[in-house]
């Protein structure tokens, strides 16, 4: 009788644990995928703002035409699809840089800056940037959790047999990490 119970535990125990670990790892992987798709949603929103941005700004900022043209091109490339991960990252970073540069240039055009269209656009753009930042941070947290699951004992045993590899973190652009406030700058 005792031997039977012992046998059940010795066989059933690892199976049960196996199931738990497996499900746990699937959970972590899914969190990563979910977070990645959230980022894509925000990126898409930002790309969708580009036509609006170009329209609002082009009448005023004649000197920025090159920037506007480039932004439109970047959007076209993105919409065309079929970009590799690296190309996608390049496009995203360029949009980052150009968008920020443009917004800062607006300081030179007080009429534009005060116009209702621009204010609405700025609100929408800033909102997307904040959401984007939050999504990136969530992705990195999910990746950390996932990598922990893959590398820490005892789930790493299961991970190996599932063939799971660690993911890389997303880099938060340096510009977003700076803490200088615009107020300080204009006070000078």
């Amino acid at each position, binding site marked *: 009788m005792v031997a039977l119970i012992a046998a059940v535990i010795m066989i059933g125990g690892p199976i049960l644990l196996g199931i738990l670990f497996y499900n746990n790892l699937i959970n972590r992987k899914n969190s990563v995928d979910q977070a990645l798709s959230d980022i894509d949603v925000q990126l898409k929103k930002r790309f969708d703002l580009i036509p609006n941005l170009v329209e609002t700004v082009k009448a005023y900022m004649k000197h920025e035409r090159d920037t506007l043209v480039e932004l439109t091109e970047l959007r076209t490339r993105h919409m065309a699809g079929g970009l590799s991960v690296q190309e996608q990252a390049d496009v995203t970073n360029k949009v980052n840089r150009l968008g*920020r540069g443009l*917004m800062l240039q607006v300081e*030179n055009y007080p009429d534009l800056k005060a116009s209702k269209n621009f*204010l609405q656009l700025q*609100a929408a753009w800033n909102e997307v*940037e904040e959401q984007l930042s*939050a999504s990136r941070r969530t992705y990195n*947290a999910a990746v950390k959790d996932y990598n922990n699951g893959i590398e820490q004992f005892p789930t790493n045993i299961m991970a190996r047999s599932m063939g799971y590899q660690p993911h890389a973190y997303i880099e938060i652009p340096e510009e977003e990490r700076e803490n*200088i406030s615009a107020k300080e700058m204009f006070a000078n």
Partner: protein
Amino acid sequence: MEEEALHTEGFDSFYERELLPALRELEAERKNIQSTLIYPTVGLGALALGLIAVLPNLGIQSMFLAAITGAGLFTWFKTKASVEFRVEFKNQIIRQILKHINKDFRYSGFSGLKKNDFTGSGIWPRTPDRYRGEDLVTGEIDQTAFSFSEVFAQIYVKDSKGRRRLQTQFKGLFFKADLNKETQHRTVILPDMAERFLGNMGQQLQKLNITRDDLVQLENVDFEKVFAVYGSDQVEARYILSPKLMERILAYSEKHELTPSISFKNSQVFVAIPISKEFFEPRIFRTLLNKEATREYYDDMQLAISLVNELDLNTRIWSKLPDYTEEEREDARRQGRNHRGGMGFGGTRK
């Protein structure tokens, strides 16, 4: 530091000029009350002595009971005698101090934030069985509407013998304000008890906390040591808790040496400041003509009011400029100069 000194001077002259006259009147009344209370004290004391003399076989239990009854009677007398005094004190002194901070702020000495707000905030898992709010302050700073009050909430718990008794759920200041971001979910920040005692293991335990939303693990290590964050949406929690806001919350906690609980829900922010003292009450047995004691009322008010700025609630994203690097600004300046043929855009700005 300089700002603090100016503020103190402002208060000093305000104290001399406007508060002292009112305090002097109230002081006369306070002395009356104090002397009135001599009679019940003496009376109760005499009664006690009398009983001990007459009934020499009083056990410890009965004496204890008598002492408690005596204290209860005394408190009852004190409350009765000072009711009007408290009302006058709040209306004159507390209200004046508030108006000095901002003449448009409103004060109601005997109302508090509603129980709905308290329970709705999500900071406490249980609805209080007893709830009392006092010293309600309402106002706006720029575009942010806020209000706060003293709150005393209690719940019934069963002790080890299965008896029901009242336990303090929260005592302190409870603050509410409009949030400068839209929220669809709930994010709650609580003092991190587990991590303090158990470190990483504590984190694992926190993940299992079923009465709360999912644990949100944030990048700011110092913040994580002090607080535990629970949120019903991971992305929104980070959307609200930007790195800057986490730093601000930490700075506020360190400056005032307390650990608040904070929640974000329905595009509002709730802050619970647990301090177990009686706020905005007049002293009965000590003189009212004391600048430091009076200054304490002012400081307590600022403790809550300052939250609007400490949490940067007035920065609206809509007109906010992102954080630009020095390089980017240099480029912009250069281009500005090119466009205007040398005028630059430093110019004359307000």
